[in-house]
């Protein structure tokens, strides 16, 4: 499984890479949307994108739209990983083509739960048996 992590924070790129690597993902990182789009111009095609919202160059929303505009990523899943807690913005991202969102702080457990929801791992039941 291949994943691309796009976040302007080196800390978040390392944290997410570590957690994803523990689940067997091959991870490519980009420090911003421009760098991500340049990397995606090549042959490497991730099945999963983890995108920050608030970045200096291209916003996460713009990046969602750019990824969804490329037919070869039509089957890829997009997970917004963000400190942004405005639900209106998150609905906007989901409407633009993101599949799920994960609000920071990220830990192994909440990321694993989202990977389960996205179909990469067996789903984890929460306390409500869902």
């Amino acid at each position, binding site marked *: 499984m291949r994943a691309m992590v796009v976040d302007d924070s080196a800390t978040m790129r*390392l944290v997410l890479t570590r957690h994803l690597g523990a689940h067997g993902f091959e991870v490519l990182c980009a420090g911003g949307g421009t760098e991500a789009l340049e990397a995606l111009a090549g042959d490497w095609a991730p099945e999963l994108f983890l995108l920050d919202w608030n970045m200096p160059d291209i916003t996460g929303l713009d990046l969602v739209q750019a990824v969804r505009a490329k037919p070869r990523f039509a089957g890829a899943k997009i997970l917004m990983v*963000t400190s942004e*807690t405005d639900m209106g913005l998150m609905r906007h991202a989901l409407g633009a083509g993101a599949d799920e969102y994960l609000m920071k702080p990220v830990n192994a457990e909440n990321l694993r739960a989202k990977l389960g929801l996205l179909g990469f791992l067996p789903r984890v039941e929460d306390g409500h048996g869902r």
Partner: protein
Amino acid sequence: MGAEAFDALDAVILAEPAKMTFREAFGQELLGPEDGPAVGTGAWLSGGIFFSGDWAGLLRVDLPLDLAKEVAGTWLGADPRGLERGTVMDAVGELANTVAGLLKPALLGVQAMSVPRVAVLDRPTLVADRSKIVGATLRLDGRCLQVSLWKCPPQFRMQVVPKPDPANGASFRP
């Protein structure tokens, strides 16, 4: 709206996002808030996030350097002694970013957050004028850290500036 939103904040409200971040991200429990400013010798790192919208503010998370290194080491699963300064500063910026995101729903009238800036200080932010600054002193393993929210003057407008080189630090200039 801006004045009322800011005046409704107190140290307990300010502390909770930091406590949640340490609990969820690191499995650590911050104690506090406690009375009095944060104290400690040596260098401090201050991560800052500007808020904008109906009013403008600046959130700062100040940690002593040794605590900042440990936080970065825990977060990255690495030995803090081997971390480069730029790596530690980036972690402090991301810490401030996470705390700011959790605090934002309590800041009525705020719409946008900046990307983080990190500065090197010789002491924690001085929380003096209570009409303009709300501060919370917290403690981890006997060491202080401080979260503070500054109300920016009405004419303040957040400027987009290039992200500074973390190796050189940054200052908080609107």
